[in-house]
Each structure stands twice: as C-alpha cells, then as structure tokens.
C-alpha cells in the first residue's frame, strides 16, 4: 500500500449536542492513499457533504480524528489544512472577473504573471471556459460558474482536492468530456482528490475507490468493480447499479442433492448442491430465510425455470427493459437486443448461481456472491 494521504479515524458528526443532536456522520473510518481519487457516493442527506466539510474544516468533528499528509488536522482552521475545494453552488468572488477568480490563490502566492496566465489558460481550456475569462461571475451561467470554481480549486497546489458535486449543473455531453479530462489532469499530476457525488456514473468513471454512504454510515468502501460485484450489504447492492438489483425473500432447504430456494407465490429455484460452495449452502440452510439479489442484466429468459408475467417492455434505443410480475414482486431484466415480448405474456427466467447475491434478512449484510462466501 502506498503512502496514506488522508485518514479518518472514528469520525462522528452531530448537529446539536454530542450524543443528542442529529447524528449526521457515524463513526467513519477511511484511508485515502496519495494519488488516489475517491468518490463519496450517496443520496442527499447521507452525510457525504458533512464528511467533506469536516475534512475541509468548515464543520468541526464531534468525535474522532482526521490526519492529512501526516498531520493531525481536525482541530485546525481551514486556512491551515492546505486543501483546495471546488463548490457545487455559487462560490465565485462576485467583484472580480472569472480569470482573477481562478488566479486568486496563485496571485496571492506572488507567482510571476506569465506563469499565472499560462496556468489559468491551461485549466480554463481543459474545462471549456477559455472564452469567458473576462466575464464577471454574475453574467455567466450556473454551469460556467461551477467550472470556474473547479478551475480555481484544481489550479492550486494543495495536499488534497475536495470536489463537491463539481459537475452537477453541466449538460450530459459536457460532463462526459470533462470527466475524462479532469481524471487525466488529476492523475497526470499525482493529485489526491475526494469527489462528492450522487451520480454513480460519475463515481464509476472518475474514482479509484468509491465510498458508499447512507444514513451517516459508510456502507462500503472499495473499487467500482468490488462495489458492483461484491456489494457488502443490501443497501449498496440496491443503491449502486441501474436499473437497481432485483431482491426477493427466499427460504432455503436441502432436498437430496439439491438446494431449493423457495420464492413467495409458490415458485421454486432448484440448483444442484455442487453449484454452491458448502459454506454458502450451510449459511443459507442455517438461516432458513435469506434475501436473494440478482442484477437485471444477469437475468436471462430461457425455455424452463420459474415463470413470470410481463408487465412492461421498454426499448431504450440500445437495450430492452422488461418488468415482470414474479414471486409476489417485480423482476426487471435487461436485454441488449430488442425484446419481442408482449405485455401479459408469460416468460420463463433462468438465474445463474454465479450471478446470485445472498443477504441476511435482518442485518442486510451480504452472505454470498456468485455461490462463494462474501
């Protein structure tokens, strides 16, 4: 493991009295290596922005420690933390033009004018705002302000770059273009960055590791592939992925040399015992009831297997989304060809053991992924 740039140790945030107020961030532990890009991913109110602000120093930590570049910083004011931050909203100094906004820190550091200009032009061109450098913040659009704020952060020298929804107001096309450029810029310079976002595409595209947050709790911290293939719990499983993972309660039992997973509504999934690792079988049978998860693109139509009744069939131009009534719930499957099934038709589906995720119904914790223990 390379050098640790940022470490959060048992960090808690209460708004109001400690132990009594709103518990916005709950006991977070996280390491970020030098040169890594981390995405804090979660819905609004999940505690990701509070976490970012504690790292920046705008919010005090209620409990726990923050180490940055080898220093303990959680008691230091923002000015002493040596971090740069890009803001989601309107954060430009309204009295100076975009160029001076971006160049602000460089000028304060008394860099030669030629250097400042060169760096401003480079960053501005990367972010497609080269043509508005002379404008005042009040006269440019929200998306342009956001990019200027991003430029102002990226141009600085800092130990850590905090990007709070830096592309929230941009059009999808521009977002795709800038994602690639920003990642290249950060990686090329070996910068360490934390990105806050609620957009999983952005998190997947930019981040080396994703921290999924919900209810103030760090649900899972891992690479995009890990999060997708081995979700640590039911929340991460259903939150990450579009369309969301299908989940069904099942009752597991071993009959002869077969593992039966009984769905609600009288359906039964039957697999040979050998399809699952022995520990997985044991874990399922011991609990009796578990929650089964399967991603929509892993569900296949086949000649046999349990039946489902089609409720909707949408062709999105590049893939079909089929929703079907299945085991007292709804099963969604994705096909990459145009699916020729009518509403009301009966289809049979196959769920490959390698694509199944098994979760504990009480704690929501993952028990097994693809027939192997979690």
């Amino acid at each position, binding site marked *: 493991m390379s050098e640790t740039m940022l470490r959060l140790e048992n960090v808690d945030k209460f708004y109001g009295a400690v132990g009594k107020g709103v518990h916005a961030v709950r006991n977070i532990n996280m390491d970020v290596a030098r040169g890594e890009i981390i995405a804090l991913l979660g819905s609004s109110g999940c505690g990701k922005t509070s976490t970012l602000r504690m790292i920046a120093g705008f919010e005090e930590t209620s409990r726990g420690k923050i180490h940055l570049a080898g220093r303990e910083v959680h008691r230091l004011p923002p*000015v002493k933390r040596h971090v740069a931050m890009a803001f989601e909203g309107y*954060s430009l100094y309204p009295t100076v033009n975009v160029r001076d906004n971006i160049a602000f820190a460089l000028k304060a550091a008394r860099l030669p004018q030629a250097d400042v200009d060169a760096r401003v032009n480079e960053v501005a061109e990367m972010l497609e705002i080269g043509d508005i450098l002379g404008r005042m*913040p009040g006269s440019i659009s929200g998306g342009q302000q956001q990019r200027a704020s991003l430029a102002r952060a990226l141009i600085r020298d800092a130990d850590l770059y905090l990007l709070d929804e830096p592309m929230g107001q941009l059009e999808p096309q521009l977002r795709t273009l800038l994602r690639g450029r920003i990642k290249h810029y950060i990686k090329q310079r070996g910068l360490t960055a934390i990105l806050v976002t609620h957009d999983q595409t952005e998190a997947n595209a930019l981040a080396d590791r994703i921290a999924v947050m919900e209810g103030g709790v760090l649900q899972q911290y891992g690479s995009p592939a890990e999060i997708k293939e081995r979700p640590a719990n039911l929340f991460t499983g259903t939150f990450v992925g579009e369309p969301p993972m299908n989940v069904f309660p099942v009752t597991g039992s071993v009959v002869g040399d077969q593992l039966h997973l009984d769905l609600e509504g009288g359906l039964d999934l039957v697999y040979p015992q050998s399809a699952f690792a022995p520990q997985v079988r044991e874990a399922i049978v011991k609990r009796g009831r578990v929650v089964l998860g399967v991603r929509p693109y892993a569900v296949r139509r086949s000649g046999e297997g349990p039946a489902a009744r089609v409720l909707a069939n949408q062709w999105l131009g590049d893939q079909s989304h089929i929703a079907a009534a299945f085991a007292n719930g709804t099963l969604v499957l994705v096909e990459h060809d145009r699916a020729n099934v009518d509403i009301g038709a009966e289809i049979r589906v196959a769920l490959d053991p390698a694509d199944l995720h098994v979760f504990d119904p009480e704690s929501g914790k993952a028990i097994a992924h693809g027939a192997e223990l979690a």
Partner: protein
Amino acid sequence: MEHTSTLEKILRGTAITLVILFFMFPIFWIFLMSFQTNETILRVPPSIVFEPTLSNYTALITGKLDTAAGTLEISFMKNLWNSLFLSTASVAVGLVLGVPAAYAFARLKFRGSEDIAFTLLSFRFAPPLLVLLPLTIYFQQIGLADTYIGLIWVYQLIVLPLILWIVRGYFEDIPADVEYAYRIAGHSWGATFRKIALPLAGPGIAAAGLLAFIFAWNNFIFALVLASADKQPVTVGALAFVTASGIQYGQVAAGIVLSILPTFALALYAQRYLVEGLSLGAVKG
C-alpha cells in the same frame, strides 16, 4: 412591459402623479409656509401668492424669535447640531456593535441564537414610555441623565435591532460557499469577514445605517425625557415654537425644512448604494 397600450400609459401616469401629489404636497406646502409670516399663513382662504420673506430662517439661525409678546431666545441651531451628532454617533455605535453581531447570527448556529436575536428585536415592540420611567431613575442615579453618552446608549434601543435584523438578512443572502472558498484559499475567518462578507453586504449595511439614522433623527420621546434643553434634538426643540402668544407656524415650517435637509441629502447620496444592493442579486445568477 414592451406592449403597454396608450391607455395603460395614461392610467399609470395618473396614478404616479396622484401618489407623488399625496406624499409631496405637505412638504411642498411646508416649504411655502417657511417663506411666509404667520399672518399670510393663517389667512382664509389660503393662497400660494404671497410676498416671500426670509425672516423665519433669520430668526432660526440667529436664535432670536420675535413674537407679539417680545423677543424669545431659541436654540434651534444647537438643536440641529444635537440631532446631527446624536444620530450620527448612535448609528456609528450601532454599526460597530450590530454588524458583527448580525454576521454571527447569520453564519453561526449557537445555542439560543434565535432567542437572543428575537429578544433584541422585541425591544422594538415595547412602548418607549414603558422603559422610560425606570430608565430615568437609573440614569439619574448613575449620572447618565442629560449626557450625550446616555442618549446615544438609549438610542441603541432604536438603532441596534434595526441594523441587526436588516444586515443579518443581507449576510444570509451571501452564498456561504463564497466565504468558504476564500477561507480555504488560505485566509482567516476575520479576513473573510472583512474582505468578502463586509463588501458584499455593503449596500445592505448602508441601507440599514440610513434607515437607522432616520429613525434616530425622528426620535422624540427619549430625548424629551432624558435630556435638558442644551442636549435636545430638533424634534424636541421644535416645541419652543409653541409660545405663550401662539404657534409660530412660519418658524415651525422653516425648522422642518432645515431639519429634513440632512436626512434628505443623506438619502440622495445613499440611493446609489441602495440600487447596488438590489443588483447584488447577480451573485445568485
């Protein structure tokens, strides 16, 4: 707005004229009165044709009031100076105390902050007479009665809540991210307050200061009770024109004209800040 019909234009013009007439006529009439003697003012029916005289202004400026009962000494110019001094000093003290407090109430959420802010506002609900009697006794005991400092202190009851609540709103309208950006770029909290928050709220502070000045200038009851003749502002001093031989309408009018001049000039000057205050909305895009 581009497609206003002629009828609409006429109606709007008429409405504006009526409003202006309604508000400006008394001032216009007082202005005329200030150049007339009591005889021409009181004749029936009134007329706008008269022989103008500067006697009212001379009487005020020289401090000698000629009445039917003889010459009276009045200290109108001293009153005017008192008004100017008391209002300016009160607003200055109010700004020094109120602006940082407003910033604190806008940006920091501390225990009881709303309660404290509301308590300060509630000073404006209480009838002044309610606090005046006990205040008079206290002021006499601690030697603050009939002093400028005592009056400026009491004027904070008028000035401080006004400044606090108006300026707080302006601070709250500044996006916090602008300040965060400045702080994270390597500046202390204090520098951010001075370099970002104060200039951005400048128009609001100017507006609050102006309004507070007018309120302080127009105050009557505090100075009437707590100050003697040589510390009293024009609002109280104008009582001197009600003499044993009648009310000196001409001098009252001239006094009003002189006493609205400073606030009028201030309002004209501060108008551009008020306009800037409206364009601050550009920050929000």
